[in-house]
Each structure stands twice: as structure tokens, then as C-alpha cells.
């Protein structure tokens, strides 16, 4: 038996049509690339798939077996046949959306997505929302913080129904550099970043960071702490980073 390697060329089918891909590619990305509409909350192509929101369900036939699976973390393989809109997929996705509605009923993103698939209300008990309100526990913020920003200031804590996305002890995330990447990827916009009086506040991580004033234009731009971290990692001197990107570009 030969073992395929990541990146090997494979051929597979979606809804009966044949496509080429690479072994190990995310099936969800392939589906979207070829124009199939599949919903998701926890997927972002920049970071590793996680499989928590259970929305990107499809049916995959591999050999004789056909089963429902999430597509984001399904590696494309030789000979698989994919079906995106079967009766089972629709039925389970409806229940998954109802569960999302009972967990985060106030989230506009969740409500809009559910409505798109015809789910307007949930038969399940609506959970009392704590201050994590609109968080769907997709983990994108911590994956970005870990895999892209490399500071891992936040993480999942607890387990089961006590699972939360938090800074340690839900106190100031001391490792957070205030880059805001988490805010950018959050599918439900629930992290909260504000700037006032020369301070960047990231509410959810209890992080307040003073902003650097540009030595050229006098405008405030990035948190100083973040610039110091850049300097440490890249070796660029701190003085060079005291100028905002706009002014730096104009110098070049």
C-alpha cells in the first residue's frame, strides 16, 4: 500500500464534477474556490482549521462509506466524492444553527447567518448570556494570536459548558501587544477595541496600551508595546519605529 504525502496531486469529485487538488488541502477551501457555498464561523484560511462551529458540514463518500463531516478540517484525498446539500446536511445544519441561536441569541452575525439558512428561532432553552456575550468559542482569536502573532496572550480556559476564551485569570493579558489581529478575525465582533486619550483598550482582554506618537506627523498610531516587540523580533531599532507607517512610506 502506498502512502500519499501532503501536496501530492489528487482528483476528487464535488456534486459529480471532477476537480484536481492537493492531498491534505482543506476541503472547505476547495469548495469555496469552486463556487460552492458553505457557511462557517470558525474557519480562516490564515490559521489551522479547528472544527468547532460544525456549520461547514458536507457528506463525503470515501470507498464504500459515506458520512457527514465538517469540511474545514477534512483533507482532500484521492477519489473522494463530496455532496454539499444533502437532506442530512440540511437537517443537521439546522439543528446546529438552532444551538448557536440558543447560545448567542444576541449576536447579529449568528442571527443573520441562521436567517440565511431559514432558521429564525430555536426550540432550545436560550442560555443566559454572561459577559462573553457574543463569543461563539470559535477560537480564531487565540489561533491568530498563537500562529500569526506568536504571543499567545489568550487561550481557551475550562472545559465543556465552562469553556471560555479568556486572558489568564480573566485579568490583564500581559502578553498582549495590542495588535488587534484578534479583533479583525472575530466572526461575531465581540472583542471590542477602542482608542481614546492616547490609549488602545481591548476590552475582552483587559488590556490598555499607550499609543506611540509619530515623531514626524504627531499622530498616534500603534501601541508602543507592540513596536517594542517588533523591534525585539526584527532587530529594527526602536527609533526607526517611532515614525508612523504613512510618514515612513512618504520618506521612501
Amino acid at each position: 500500500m502506498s502512502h500519499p504525502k501532503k501536496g501530492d496531486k489528487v482528483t476528487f469529485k464535488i456534486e459529480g464534477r471532477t476537480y484536481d487538488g492537493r492531498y491534505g488541502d482543506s476541503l472547505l477551501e476547495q469548495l469555496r474556490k469552486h463556487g460552492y457555498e458553505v457557511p462557517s464561523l470558525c474557519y480562516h484560511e490564515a490559521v489551522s482549521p479547528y472544527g468547532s462551529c460544525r456549520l461547514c458540514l458536507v457528506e463525503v463518500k470515501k470507498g464504500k462509506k459515506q458520512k457527514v463531516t465538517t469540511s474545514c478540517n477534512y483533507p482532500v484525498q484521492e477519489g473522494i466524492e463530496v455532496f454539499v446539500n444533502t437532506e442530512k446536511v440540511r437537517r443537521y445544519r439546522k439543528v446546529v444553527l438552532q444551538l448557536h441561536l440558543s447560545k448567542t441569541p444576541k449576536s447579529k452575525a449568528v442571527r443573520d447567518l441562521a436567517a440565511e439558512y431559514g432558521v429564525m428561532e430555536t426550540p432550545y432553552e436560550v442560555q443566559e448570556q454572561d459577559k462573553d456575550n457574543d463569543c461563539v468559542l470559535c477560537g480564531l482569536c487565540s489561533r491568530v494570536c498563537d500562529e500569526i502573532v506568536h504571543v499567545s496572550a489568550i487561550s481557551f480556559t475550562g472545559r465543556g459548558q465552562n469553556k471560555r476564551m479568556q486572558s489568564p485569570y480573566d485579568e490583564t493579558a500581559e502578553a498582549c501587544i495590542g495588535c488587534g489581529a484578534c479583533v479583525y478575525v472575530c466572526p461575531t465582533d465581540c472583542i471590542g477595541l477602542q482608542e481614546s486619550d492616547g490609549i488602545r483598550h481591548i476590552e475582552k482582554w483587559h488590556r490598555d496600551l499607550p499609543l506611540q506618537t509619530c515623531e514626524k506627523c504627531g499622530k498616534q498610531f500603534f501601541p508602543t508595546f507592540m513596536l517594542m516587540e517588533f523591534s525585539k523580533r526584527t532587530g529594527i531599532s526602536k527609533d526607526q519605529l517611532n515614525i508612523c507607517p504613512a510618514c515612513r512610506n512618504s520618506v521612501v
Partner: protein
Amino acid sequence: MARIDSVSELEKYRAQLVAHRDPERKAISVCTSGCIAYGADKLVDAFRQGLKARGLDDKVDVKTTGCHGFCERGPLVVIHPGNLFYQRVQPGDVDEILDETIEKGENIDRLMFHLDDGTVMACEDDVPFYKNQKRLLLKDNSSLDPYSIDDYIALGGYGALGKVLAGMKPDEVVTTVKDSGLRGRGGGGFPTGVKWESCRNAPSDDGVRYIICNADEGDPGAFMDRALLEGNPHAVIEGMIIGAFAIGHPGKPQGYVYVRNEYPIAVERLGVALEQAREKGLLGDDILGSGLSFDIRINKGGGAFVCGESTALMASIEGDVGEPRAKHIHTVEAGLWDKPTNLNNVESWANVPLILDRGVEWFTAIGTGDVRGNPWGGSKGTKIFALVGKVNNTGLVEVPMGTTLREIIYDIGGGIKDGKEFKAVQTGGPSGGCLPADKLDLPVDFDELTKVGSMMGSGGMIVMDEDTCMVDVARYFLHFLADESCGKCITCREGLVQLCSIVDRICEGNGKPEDLELLDELSETVSEASLCALGQTAPNPLRSTMKYFREEYEEHINEKKCRGGVCKSLITYSINDKCTGCLICKKKCPQQCISGEKDKLHVIDQSNCIKCGVCMDVCKYDAVDVN
């Protein structure tokens, strides 16, 4: 003697051990596994002190052994030679045992097992509980000192490893295990040899392959693996070394045992056993001069049921939280640190030396079906069950695959406690199901149990009687799983919370007829759309009770009635005329809501009763009813 450098030296060493052993030497084996909860450790101290006081401490051995199985009658003591079986032994009995049995060779009637007709059963093997079993894995538990590798070697231990290293090729070992039809004892029932073969064939750039023993026995109500690790750790180690040779040699096989932190005795005994195996050269470099290099590390779990799931277990060994990942690429190809990884359960590993030692024909003669050319074709060998709950003889039982539930519960288990009616038996733990009386004649094997909506699981077998509420049982498992869910995927995390909330309201008398439909729809989605096996199997206890005991759900919903007398909101306690007026319940009632004078009938004030059941617990006259 220190390191053993070859198979022939091992056999020489064994011969020496056997020659130096006096078969008439007396030994007192005390179960210090589960019986610890009966105070068996105090018993051991008493034996040691008593022997010392009599100047017998160098003539008689005291062995602290693993579980003997018949937990109901603990603390258990077996006296060798002769396997004299004493039960319910207390420290106060020790002097008499030493004076009468050890010194004079007299049996003490009071401590022996009596049948209902008064017949005395002197030997362990005569007792019906043991006689109706087939103890292949557990047989040495009442004579073997788990702290002594010499004890194991003297009984033939590491002989299978010797045979493998002296005369077999790795592929032959894989084929043997495949032909034996051994299937995963952790519950899944996947053919062990097939797994070994895939792992052996999976490419590994640096030759590293991981050999893991899953001892994270998380199923509540199950302690088979605990008993094996505490009673016979070397059998598990020997199985793993054979596995390392078959799967990873030549190459760099590396071993791990992931064991629950809740099993401190198992961790300790396994640690001692590993150290002894290293000293003898049975672990480490160039094992028995074969060129095989392999060692085993212990990793302790931290109290998370989900870590019994293979990918979560591997994440935990890697130093992460125990979150499972999707297994679209199997762990035999990319498991621990992305290397080919073979994971088997404790009981599966313990079977390996037996199979290699006694051969495929012997093993396949035990059990069901036909596995020639198809390892899925049957269930071979024995299975250990933890027989617990409302059954007379609770304990660990080992039976051939294919034994019926009735034989296990009635012939071995002695039937239901207090003459009550059998209601259900739960197998497979939180992933399994509850089967009703009309399934009692079902032969227990992997495929039969799955067909009727339960599963073999790791071997928990919980017997339930008429006083058990099946809705409450489902509720128990749902809450257990909601508590143990890692929370990664929404279907498991929120789905279980919602299933709990619906079943809770049914138990509280607030259920609606349409709840049953909602339970059906949600449980199917949780099964089909969850990420790992925990979520996928989580609805099984619910679905099996809804299938076989639907009337109880309907009663809770429509008549607000709990026939098991368990659901607090639907029951009342009252005192009947058997009451002698002893005042005990009145004294113990935390609400002080029982009134009555001495020698007069007591009455419970229903308005203040919190239905804690203490009155029923403390009443010696069976005078408290639950309605």
C-alpha cells in the same frame, strides 16, 4: 542477578527461580486493590506484625496483590499453598488465622464461603462466582506479587517475549495477532492486528513509532484496567514490548502508558514494574540481545474523561489540553507528534503475551464467530467485566466472549440484590446503552451488543433493579458527559447542555409531550455532527433508554410519575406501620420534619420534606416507603 542478556539466559534464570522456590512455602495474599476501601491495608499490617511476633516473618510471605475479583466479599485473603479462600477478613481475625491456619493447618469455617445450603467452599476455584468464569488474564491476580518481577518470571512471564525474540520476525508476530482475531478491549472492537499492520506499514522518516497503552479508564463503573495494572503490571509491559518489536523493529519504537491520576496504586505498581524490567534488561537497549531497543514512560492524566479518546490522549502526552482532533488521517499514520502511533487498551496488551505463548488455535477456540481470513468475523478470547450495581456478587468477572448476559448476572453475579426485580443492564459506559430483560439471553460480543443499540465498551456492566429510574439513568450519563465534554465543538458542548436541560425538566415533572421528538432530533445531530467519539456516542444511553423504556419517559411527562422512586420532584416519602417508633429517623432528619414519640408511629411533614432519603437510609425496620 542483574541484567539478562539473551533469551537462553532468561530461561536459565527462570529455571533457577523455580528450582529455588519451595512449593510448600506458605504465603498470605491480601487484595490491596479495591479492598483498600474495606481497610485491607490495615489487614496487611496486622498480618506482618502477627508473623513477626510469632517469629514467622521469614517463613511466611505476605503478598499485597491486585484485585481477586470477588469484591462483594472483601477484604479477600487467599492462603497458599492450596488456595484457601477467606472472605470478609477483618484485622481482628488475623491472630486466629495465624494460629489456626498458618501454624496448625486448620480451616476457619466462619471465614470460608458458604453456599445457601450451608456447603463450605474452601478453595477459590470452587466458589460459584469463580467457577463459572474463564480467568485467563486475572487468574494470577490472587497469587502474584505485583511488586516482584521474579514472581512473574517464575510463573512463565516474559516467556512469550522470549519466544518472539528468539524465533519470530516482526511480520510473523503481526500476522499471529491478526489471525487470533483479537479486537480492541477499550470498547471499539477494532482488530488489533490490523491496527498493528497499518502502523508498521506507515512511513516514518526517522523510524520513530509510538506504542501507547491507554490506561485512562474513564468509564464510570469500570475497573478492569485498574485491576490488571495493579495485579499484573508485567503482563501489560510484556505485551507492549512484543508490540514494539512487531510494529517498530527495526526502528525506534517508544512507549507510553497514559494512566488515570485517580489510580494512584496502579501508577505506583506500574512504575516499580518498569524499573524492575529495566534492571533485568527487558526494557532499554538491545533487549535480550535481540537488537530491539524500547522503553516505556508513564504519563498521568489529570481527571478528564475525554483523554481516553485517542487523539485527546495524544494531545495530553504532547503537553496540551486534552482536546480531540478529527481523525480523517488515522493516528496509525500520524498520531503522537505526527508519527505513526499504535494505541491499544490495557486489556488488549495483556492478551498479547497469552496469544503469542499459546498460539492462534488455542485463542480462536474461545469466543464467537469465525475469524479465519477476516478479523472482523467474530469476537475471540475472554472479556473482563466490572459487574456492579444492584447485583449480589459485585466484582470483576472474566468470561469467554459469547457468554450471555444472563449467565454473567445470574450464574456468576448471583442475581439481583434483596430479591428485587431486574430492570436493565448498562454496558459500554457513557458511550453504551441500557438493555432490558428481554435481551438477557444475548451473547456478549462486540457485534451483538452494537446491533441492539449498546456496545461492549471497556467492560463496565451495571445492573439495575426496579428501584432504578431509567430517565434518571439517562440524565446521569448526560450530565456526566456534559461535564466531561472538552467543549471544543458546539454539538457536543451545547447539544449536551440542551439534552440535559430537556431531560432535567422531564425528571422535574415539567416535561412536554413534544420533548421526546426534540430529544430524538437533537440526539441524532449530536451523534452525527460531533467531532470526536465522545460526542458521537454521547446520546447512546439516552437513545437506548428511550427505545427500551419509553413508557417511563411517558409516565414522567404525562402522569408525573417516577416508578423507580428516584426523581425527587415526583416522589414522596412516608412512614408505614412497620415503624417501631425508634426515633432514629426523627433524629437524623436534616429538616426536623419527622414527628412522633418513642414507640409510636412517626409521621413525615410533607411540606418541609426535602426528599433527601436519609430517613429511609437509617430505618432498620423497612418502615419508610417511597411513592
